[in-house]
């Protein structure tokens, strides 16, 4: 699709509001357009994958063909043409990189623009980063230091080569290939993503981080992340996403699987800032993501924290399966939808083990003409005696053109367990606004301040550097929504 002069101008006009909207001019190697069995084989061959993985992909592809696109979410978008997408796109770089110096300078510039700590900054920030560009993981930092601790942090394509047993054992164990339409698609065509393995008794000494970037036109990003944390171990993982501004919609269908063994803890934080489309809803990323954590071990804990400001459409429900006795699941979310954005997001807490606990705090903010839906399920199964859930979802409406919706599902099968759900919807209180205005803030600043207060419970769960970024993001996302 060629952008007309008019649309290019329009994109330029709004370019200031989305600072990640640039395109990196990199030569890319792409698979032919569309999806069929040959493409799946092509991707697998490109990745030099073993036969079992190819078979697994083909099985997923067949499953996908037999499935229908889900339509229960409160989002509207034109039907996606799955044959008009490039399923494989990789920056043409040297086959093997020994250090970051060998990375294409264009690419490095991209990361500078993204504000990602790279090279020296990286040491200061003390964050190990895996960069996933379109479909391919470009570089992973701090690997040696992590390896000293026995921690594996590498692109999943490398893990398939180097640790096939681990990958084979866990991939698809939390989210089976036929789990849902987009998970099946991802299983068939996933190209890269991060792999983390923390052995027994190791507290990961630094935050692990991945930045995802969709660059190529008409390409989809299908990354797959797998994190396994063994007994008594801990890891904190951060994920950030951006994409260039383009007129057409791009598809992002990721799968994230977490496995926590006895006494293990995984903290997974996301700041999602895919391009949301322009004011009229043109362009933007379709973000259809399946994320699920399996609290397999006793006293294990998985905590999801997400700040969702981007994407034209978000369809995302990070969930916890609380299988181990006394395991804990947490979900903290801020979802901001402005202009024509549509977000249908929430969580699932499936209590299977005894004395399992879950907490859900969700804050939804709608502005402009956006629709923001919380959709969550809490299920207490028969054997989950003594379990506990607390859910709170609050929605804030800014302007009378937007919508805020709450759709919780509660299924309780055990008398000794307790489920509590609370939800409120309101606008910014006139009193609070007046108070701020009186003290010299303008309406926009005041709104931003009040919104940040509204989200505080979630923000405090984010790691420090992420929290600052997230706070700024929310301010930027709501620009132009008041007055």
């Amino acid at each position: 699709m060629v952008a007309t002069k008019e649309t290019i101008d329009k994109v330029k006009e709004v370019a200031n509001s989305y600072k990640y909207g640039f395109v990196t001019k990199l030569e890319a190697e792409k698979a032919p357009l569309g999806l069929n069995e040959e493409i799946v084989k092509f991707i697998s061959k490109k990745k030099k994958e073993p036969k079992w993985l190819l078979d697994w992909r083909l099985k997923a592809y067949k499953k996908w063909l037999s499935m229908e696109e889900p339509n229960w979410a409160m989002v509207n978008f034109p039907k996606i043409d799955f044959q008009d997408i490039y399923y494989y796109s990789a920056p043409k770089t040297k086959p093997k990189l020994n250090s970051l110096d060998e990375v294409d300078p264009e690419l490095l510039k991209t990361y500078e623009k993204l504000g990602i700590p790279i090279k020296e900054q990286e040491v200061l920030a003390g964050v190990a980063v895996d960069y996933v560009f379109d479909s391919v993981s470009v570089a992973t930092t701090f690997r040696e230091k992590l390896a000293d601790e026995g921690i594996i942090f590498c692109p999943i394509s490398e893990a398939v080569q180097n640790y096939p047993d681990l990958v084979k054992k866990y991939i698809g164990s939390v989210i089976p290939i036929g789990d849902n339409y987009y998970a099946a698609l991802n299983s068939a065509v996933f190209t890269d993503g991060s792999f983390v393995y923390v052995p027994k008794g190791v507290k990961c000494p630094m935050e692990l981080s991945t930045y995802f970037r969709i660059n190529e036109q008409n390409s989809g990003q299908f990354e797959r992340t797998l994190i396994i944390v063994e007994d008594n171990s801990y890891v904190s993982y951060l994920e950030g996403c951006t994409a260039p501004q383009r007129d057409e919609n791009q598809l992002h269908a990721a799968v994230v699987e977490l496995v926590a063994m006895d006494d293990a803890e995984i903290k997974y934080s996301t700041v999602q800032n895919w391009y949301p489309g322009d004011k009229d809803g043109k362009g933007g990323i379709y973000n259809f993501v399946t994320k699920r954590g399996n609290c397999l071990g006793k006293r294990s804990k998985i905590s999801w924290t997400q700040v969702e400001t981007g994407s034209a459409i978000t369809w995302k429900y990070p969930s916890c399966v609380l299988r181990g006795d006394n395991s804990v699941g947490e979900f903290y979310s801020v979802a901001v939808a402005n202009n024509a954005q549509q977000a249908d997001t929430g969580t699932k807490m499936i209590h299977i083990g005894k004395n399992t606990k879950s907490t859900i705090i969700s804050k939804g903010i709608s502005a402009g003409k956006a629709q923001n839906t919380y959709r969550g399920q809490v299920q207490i199964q028969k054997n989950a005696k003594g379990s506990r859930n607390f859910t709170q979802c609050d929605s804030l409406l800014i302007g009378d053109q937007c919508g805020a919706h709450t759709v919780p599902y509660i299924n309780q099968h055990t008398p000794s367990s307790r489920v509590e759900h609370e939800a409120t919807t309101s606008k910014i209180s006139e009193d609070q606004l007046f108070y701020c205005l009186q003290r010299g803030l303008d309406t926009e600043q005041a709104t931003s301040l009040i919104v940040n207060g509204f989200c505080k419970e979630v923000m405090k769960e984010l790691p420090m550097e992420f929290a600052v970024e997230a706070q700024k993001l929310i301010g930027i996302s709501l620009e132009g929504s008041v007055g």
Partner: protein
Amino acid sequence: MQHSIKDDYINSIRNYTNQFEDNNFRSIACKDFKSWPGPRDETWRLSRLGSLSRKKIKPIYPNLKKTNNTSNLIGSKIIHFVDGAYRDDLSSKLPSGVNLSILSDSESLKYLQKIKKSNLSNHPSTNISLSCTPSIIKLTVIKNIKVKDFFEIIYEGGEDSHSVHPVLYIELEENSSLSVIERFNHLSSLVMPLQLTELGNKASLNSIKIFNDNKKTHNLSAHCINLSEKSNLNSFSLIKGGVFTRSETHAYLNGCGAKLNLNGIYISGNKQHHDLTTAIYHDVPDCTSKQIVRGVLGGKSTGVFQGKVRVAQHAQRTDGQQMSKSILLSENASANAKPELEIYADDVICAHGATVGELDDDQLFYLNSRGVPMDKAREILIKAFLEDMINQSVDNSLHDFVFKEAELALSLIITKETL
């Protein structure tokens, strides 16, 4: 000849409606019936009709010689339905200002069109009951009349392997008021009551429904309510009978300043499945809706509460509150709740809360430490859990009757094991 519900049942209804013109309300309703709701229908996901589809059922032809079995409440005006048909001979003489009529075909068509405008248009009870009801009965309270006597509408009759289809239309004209208690005591396999209630400006209705059908009965009740300016509806449902009872109510707040209370209790034991599904639509500014739902579940029963509140874009200054609480008394009981908010206006106060669990340990301990034995303490707390709410929703004169009905149901599920 008897029919299994899936195909033959519908075919027999089609055969019946074939004798009418194409533009008759029965033919239209029958044509609109597409299929039984399945587990893929979002609002029927938690209440599946699988057990019904294995039954052999046919619509009943009303037997006008049957007499009544339900003892009436003293002092009430009775309206009696047997086998889904209105029985003048068993009903009371009406006070002045209240009219009862059987709708003509053209009036019935208008009735159908009104229901079709609502979200009940595809409910099976809408299409099937309108196809084969004996007739649509309309109860009207004339303008400015405040009816002092309370009305009792008794639905009974029906037989095993048959379905019953009472269809009612209650209209309160401007500034009138009425109190109604409806009691469902059917013996049939399937009951599909359909009701449309319309409240004129400043009209006020107190409504109580007690679902107490036979233990083998499936009751799929559908109720559409339209509220005009400053009208007031105070509604309370007690679901305790049937093997499967689903009461689905859609209330449209169409006039500014309308007030709605939509409360309910379900008490379930054995293998009962009770479902209270409601939808409240705030379509104009300044309306209030409040909803309190309580459930007590024993045996292998399942309780479902689905409550949707939708606030349209221009329905500013809406106040919508909803609270549901369920208590599980048995290991094999389960409770499902889906309180749903769909809000398009910004100047609103909307909240919902839902809890599912067991009795509060602190409260139990309080009673226990004052010498009340554990089983007695539990009984006291369960009754208090319900009485508190019946006090709020039911008029004094009917309070004792409703509470006794609830107690009776409780006594069946509070056994030694559950206490």
